[in-house]
């Protein structure tokens, strides 16, 4: 069966954002084709590969690597795919397979808080979004109904309709943390795309505690579920199709895309509308790669902003032993947070943050530490149980402000297909560092309230990354300052739309995917609006299987 050479809408990338945009367009009667760089993978094989993996804390280790669609890997040593230009490392992770990176997300599906979209007006930092929180609400709702999001009624993000699912049962450890931190801190259950009952043809969570890197039972919504929904709605998906160029005509309209198959044979697919949904790093890379005599700096780049304003959520953390047995590792990995530091007048001075309590089993890390320390004999057994029962960890997700110098460019280094690799230029500014400093005081209070001993802070100035790639295709009304408009359309190309977290003009403090999906659904609606009489998102809400 030969792959199609044309479609009404061509979508580049089968991640959660591209696939749900494709699904929505198909439900509006559009003929949609998704081109996906990576191969199809099988859940059962990923579970088996994880169990056999020598690197269980490396979420990438069970996933296959394809030479034609490389992805950044850092263990056991870096594969050099995401070139690091510094000054601070930006070791982003993503998976290039059918369904994309959410194969190994932890399904935290938070909305922003309303003030997140107005930080310039309110706090004099960053930029304001071209959309209001109220405009986002129905798209958040639709995204939550599609993903099957479970949450508590009051998490600081207003909503007009209830969550589709009741909150996921809170692990015992989190109940104890919540009780012991009250009233100094309010600990709340996370809003998650994880089934608290069967929903969308998927079962309720059974607590495998392997949400990252793989949910064995399909209780957590993944991009592959979006691919399946899109296919059921009539969307065609071509795997192993590495788009390397986007073509335009004399007026700047996009006419076709070119892709390589794994043998490097080139194929051309023409279309009327195009969605670029290859993620916050590969999408700008593709725009930069598609430069032409008319657009020497790359497509969609008259503002010069393609790939710039790269943001994420750096984390610092505290690990310690509580004075009672908690036993992390029972139930899902990411159950609870402190949300109250996401917003406030302090945002004019330092980064806002969310504080996230892990429920990842501590057994692996404790075992490694004990062996490293040379704890042998009967003490090993006792220490393993003592530490695994009491070890807790809390981390920040810190806001980063848009800074044009933080950016993705094309490297002079090429991948196996001869395509330039992406290059990350990144630094962490004083605003974010001050936020990290403020959070250290919270860490100390939290540890004290839990009778903490053996406190281990992330060394000052060191951060880990959260893979929430934002900003590189930022949306805004001014075409001289932003890549995309308020609907994700490239300012420079009437029929090119961008979907994904890259369009977010600021990063806020919440894991970005739900916002990326809500914006993608809104983009799809804009591309193929409902007929006037039925123009309400409620129509598509009915299409959700539950």
């Amino acid at each position, binding site marked *: 069966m030969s792959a199609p050479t044309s479609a009404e809408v061509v979508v580049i990338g089968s991640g959660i954002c591209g696939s749900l945009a494709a699904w929505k367009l198909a439900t509006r009667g559009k003929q949609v084709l998704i081109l996906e760089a990576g191969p199809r993978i099988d859940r059962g094989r990923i*579970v088996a590969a*994880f*169990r*056999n*993996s*020598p*690197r*269980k804390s490396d979420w990438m280790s069970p996933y296959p690597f394809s030479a034609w669609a490389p992805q950044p890997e850092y263990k*056991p*040593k870096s594969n050099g795919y995401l070139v690091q230009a510094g000054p601070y490392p930006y070791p982003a992770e993503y998976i290039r397979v059918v369904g994309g990176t959410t194969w190994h997300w932890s399904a935290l599906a938070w909305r922003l808080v309303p003030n997140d979209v107005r930080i310039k007006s309110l706090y004099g930092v960053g930029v304001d979004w071209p959309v209001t929180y109220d405009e986002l609400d129905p798209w958040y709702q639709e995204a939550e109904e599609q993903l099957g999001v479970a949450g508590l009624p009051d998490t600081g993000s207003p909503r007009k309709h209830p969550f589709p699912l009741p909150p996921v*049962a*809170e*692990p*015992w450890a989190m*109940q104890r943390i919540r009780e012991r931190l009250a009233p100094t801190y309010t600990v709340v259950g996370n809003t998650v795309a994880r089934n*608290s*009952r069967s929903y969308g043809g998927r079962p*309720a*969570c*059974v*607590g*495998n*505690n*392997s949400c990252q890197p*793989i949910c*064995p*039972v399909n209780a957590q919504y993944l991009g592959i579920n979006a691919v399946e929904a899109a296919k059921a709605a009539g969307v065609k998906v071509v795997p192993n199709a590495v788009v390397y160029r986007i073509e335009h005509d004399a007026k700047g309209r996009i006419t076709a895309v070119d892709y390589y198959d794994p043998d490097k044979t080139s194929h051309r697919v023409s279309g009327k509308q195009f969605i670029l949904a290859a993620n916050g790093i590969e999408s700008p890379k593709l725009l930069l790669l598609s430069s032409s005599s008319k657009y020497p700096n790359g497509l969609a780049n008259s503002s010069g902003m393609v790939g710039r304003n790269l943001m994420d959520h750096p984390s610092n953390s505290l690990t310690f032993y509580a004075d009672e*047995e908690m*036993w992390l*590792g*029972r*139930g899902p990995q990411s159950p609870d947070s402190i949300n109250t530091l996401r917003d406030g007048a302090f945002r004019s001075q330092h980064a806002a943050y969310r504080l996230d309590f892990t429920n*990842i*089993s501590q*057994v*692996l890390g*404790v*075992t*490694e530490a*004990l*062996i*490293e*320390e*040379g*704890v*042998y*004999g*009967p*003490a*090993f*057994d006792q220490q*393993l*149980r003592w530490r*695994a*029962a009491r070890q807790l960890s809390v981390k920040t997700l810190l806001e980063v402000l848009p800074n044009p110098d933080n950016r993705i460019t094309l490297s002079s280094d090429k991948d196996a297909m001869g395509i330039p690799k992406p290059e990350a230029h990144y630094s962490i500014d004083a605003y974010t560092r001050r936020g990290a400093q403020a959070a250290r005081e919270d860490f100390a209070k939290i540890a004290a309230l839990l009778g903490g001993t053996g406190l281990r802070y992330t060394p000052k100035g060191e951060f880990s990354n959260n893979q929430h790639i934002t900003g590189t295709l930022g949306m805004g009304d001014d075409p001289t300052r932003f890549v995309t408009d308020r609907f994700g359309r490239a300012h420079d190309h009437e029929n090119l739309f961008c979907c994904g977290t890259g369009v977010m003009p600021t990063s806020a403090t919440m894991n970005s995917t739900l916002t990326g999906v809500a914006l993608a659904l809104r983009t799809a609606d804009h591309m193929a609006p409902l007929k006037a009489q039925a123009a309400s998102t409620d129509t598509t809400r009915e299409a959700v299987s539950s």
Partner: protein
Amino acid sequence: MTGELAMTEPDQGPANPARRRVLAGFLTAYTASLVPWALAQPVAAPEHGAFMALSALLAGRRSLDAGLAARLFDALSAMYPHFTADARALLAQINQQHIDPAQLQSTLDGAHSPLAPLPRRIMRAWCLGLVGEGEATKCVAYENALNAVIVADVLKPPTYAYGEYGSWAKPPLAEGVNAS
């Protein structure tokens, strides 16, 4: 009794295959006193003796799975050509110098002993199911590695279902969940 394994070997192979080989035969009075509970631990083959003795000393467990022991021994000796000889040498040193397992690593590190990596290799194999270093590392065990077994009354290894929806909301050591 000396630390020489060949001399303490109770059953030298096929001549008397029916006789059960146990760990006691590989230990001296000193090491036997450290792991009295493990004396009846079966030993699959004579060349496993020193490895099993070290395993009992390092892991401090009442019993070690003989099938897993054989797999770990095979993987370790395939990965490290001198593994069997090193294991004998280390056991002999423990016997001669009466080294307490709790002090073993610091003693070997302090003396810059060439045998210093050995205890960690054996413990990584038993407790993490991992043999080898860096890119050459192999996973030989997961759900039956000791770190999973030691906490099995409270936790399932990741990817194994904890239990029915919501069961994790109960206290971990509630009646019925934990017998200990």
